[in-house]
């Protein structure tokens, strides 16, 4: 199946709807439907593995929450329910952001944000941030190697058995690498005229098409339903 191309603005709109839906929705069933919709969107956008995995993980989470609600009582139930409620609120938005970042090129984002009349002072830092995410993963690989050679285990276990050292090992080099990378990145982009005040163009053109209208409509409809259910209109 060939991936459907969505306009970055659509993705931003859908993310907004996700946030609104999780804020207003009352029941777990609605969250499940929302996550399912996000997964379908992910499949359409070409993030197959991510979408399936995201849905399966959420399924497990959902099952566990249901089990806890039914089998536990009293203080235990309250404790777990509170924790899981938070996870349920965050999960769909996180999943949507992942699909959004994974399926959109940085330059597309920049054009989209400029079309939405966002100021430069927001767009450029945002683009640098997106560019920086994969660098963190690369840095992390090197730091892991370095830790192993110093006999510090880069794992969850290490975090419990030797917390201060593990944290120090991760954040010190990561911070140092980050400040250097950010600096060099900005220099390289400034030297190629990123600050040019004239309208920026894009190699990849973006258009709002049928699929975008459809996606926005479906999510909007879902959001309206959520609101209606909450207000007791249905």
């Amino acid at each position, binding site marked *: 199946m060939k991936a459907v191309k969505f306009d970055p603005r659509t993705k931003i709109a859908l993310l907004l709807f996700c946030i609104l839906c999780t804020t207003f929705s009352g029941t777990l069933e609605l969250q499940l439907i929302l996550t399912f919709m996000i997964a379908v969107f992910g499949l359409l956008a070409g993030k197959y593995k991510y979408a399936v995995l995201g849905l399966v993980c959420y399924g497990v989470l959902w099952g566990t929450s249901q089990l806890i609600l039914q089998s536990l009582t009293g203080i235990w139930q309250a404790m777990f329910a509170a924790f899981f409620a938070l996870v349920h609120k965050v999960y769909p938005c996180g999943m949507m952001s992942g699909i959004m970042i994974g399926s959109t090129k*940085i330059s597309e984002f920049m054009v989209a944000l400029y079309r939405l009349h966002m100021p430069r002072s927001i767009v450029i830092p945002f683009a640098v941030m997106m560019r920086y995410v994969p660098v963190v993963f690369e840095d992390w690989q090197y730091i892991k190697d370095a830790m192993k050679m110093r*006999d510090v285990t880069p794992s969850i276990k290490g975090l419990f058995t030797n917390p201060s050292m593990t944290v*120090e090992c991760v954040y010190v080099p990561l911070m140092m690498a980050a400040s250097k990378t950010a600096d060099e990145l900005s220099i390289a982009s400034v030297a190629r005229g990123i600050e040019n005040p004239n309208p920026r163009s894009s*190699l990849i053109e973006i258009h709002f098409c049928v699929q975008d209208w459809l996606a926005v409509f479906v999510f909007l409809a879902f959001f309206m339903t959520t609101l209606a259910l909450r207000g007791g209109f249905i």
Partner: protein
Amino acid sequence: MIHFQNVSFRYDDNGDGAVRNLNFTVKKGECVLLTGRSGCGKTTLLRLANGLIPNYFSGNLEGKIIVDQMEVSETPLYQIAERVGTVFQNPRTQFFNVDTDSEIAFGMENKGMDSAYMKKRVIQTAEELKITNLLGRNIFSLSGGEKQKIAFASIYAMNPEIYLLDEPSSNLDVISIEALRQQLKLLKEQGKTILIAEHRLYYLKDLADRIFYLEEGEIKESYNCQDFLKLSDRQREEKGLRMMEYKNSSFCNQPQLFQKPVLEINDLSVGYKKQAVRSNINLAARGGEIIALLGQNGAGKSTFCRTLCGILKPLSGTFRRNGQVLTQKERRAKAYMVMQDVNYQLFAESVEKECGFGIKNPDENKICTTMHRLGLYPYRERHPNTLSGGQKQRTAVAVSMMCKKELLVFDEPTSGLDFDGMANVSKLMGDLAESGKIVFVVTHDYELITRICTRIIYFDACGQMEDALVSKKTLPDLMGFFPTQKDLFLS
């Protein structure tokens, strides 16, 4: 094209790299090489020419700089960027997009050019620079050399009149450097003006029209290429400069071999997730050897080193130390890698604490003697990140001594270093070997190899491994390990 008149500059933090009394003119179509020791002001000079000073870096600027009829200090950066393109040192941090096509178009996008034109120009750029195979790729999956080609293409696509390059070769292997040379040749043919700051000189031999030698922020001498080549090795080394030509250098490396430790590797195959990158590795090494590990990108050098240091599990085969099989954990305890970017492996808040980091009840006396031995004692209170590159390397080596490591792997320790830096690294490796350790060094640095290495292991592209001792006799063979550069080395 470029005109500097009585230019002096000092950074706000009074750090290295201040320049004084710069007076020179570069004509259209000229290629000028800037060289000199680290911190001599080469980079500062380039930043003055592309407007990063004073627009991005602030400090005290005097004098007048005219570049392509623009008064640099009064022109906004984006306007200078249209006519002056800069290629930087680190391929990892100079691209902004994740896909190659957008990256090549990045400068044109900022300028607001028409999309149809950009599409044409991207393809034209790729064809002229012979990188059509890199179009449509994810930049994070490219090698360092390929990244640098994209960075170059991104500038080339904007078609500036002036090109500034800041140590573009320092993270490249021999083959990528040759590609860079070809690109520069193309620019010269097109009549572009080029200013290039570099430590590695050999690849610019036929390109540079003039060579400026900088010392402490001043242009001390200006040579044409013939005169520069006439400098004797001694004069060159006194100036802290790297070789301009690869020729029969002196071999002083007679290894003093130790009985122990002896490392034996049998039928080793290394790789990730069951997929072998390199198989049939057989070798034996003894304390006192300095082994250069050569090969192209992707030949499996780093996979081998990571396995050697116990970070990766081997797919098959054994490691033995003095006859005893080493487990992964034991290798990790005995081997240590000094990474190319040492910053990743320094964790503590002072050099002294770094030496004892992760060790239960560290021996204070031993930390002291180790720091003295490596010349780090005056810096014991300093944060490792405030040290120079060479000092950081030595701190990492101090750590390896504290942990009683017997085998050290250096990953590209001389990339971007001037002659003095290279000489220091080779002395450090020599000292380690003299104390009976086995030293491996992954490198593309011919000068370092002939200076200190006793043996070469070459991973070729077809899965074969060659193993040779370094001596005057094997020099022709040694040059064979740098295939595309053969004629350059022998000239």
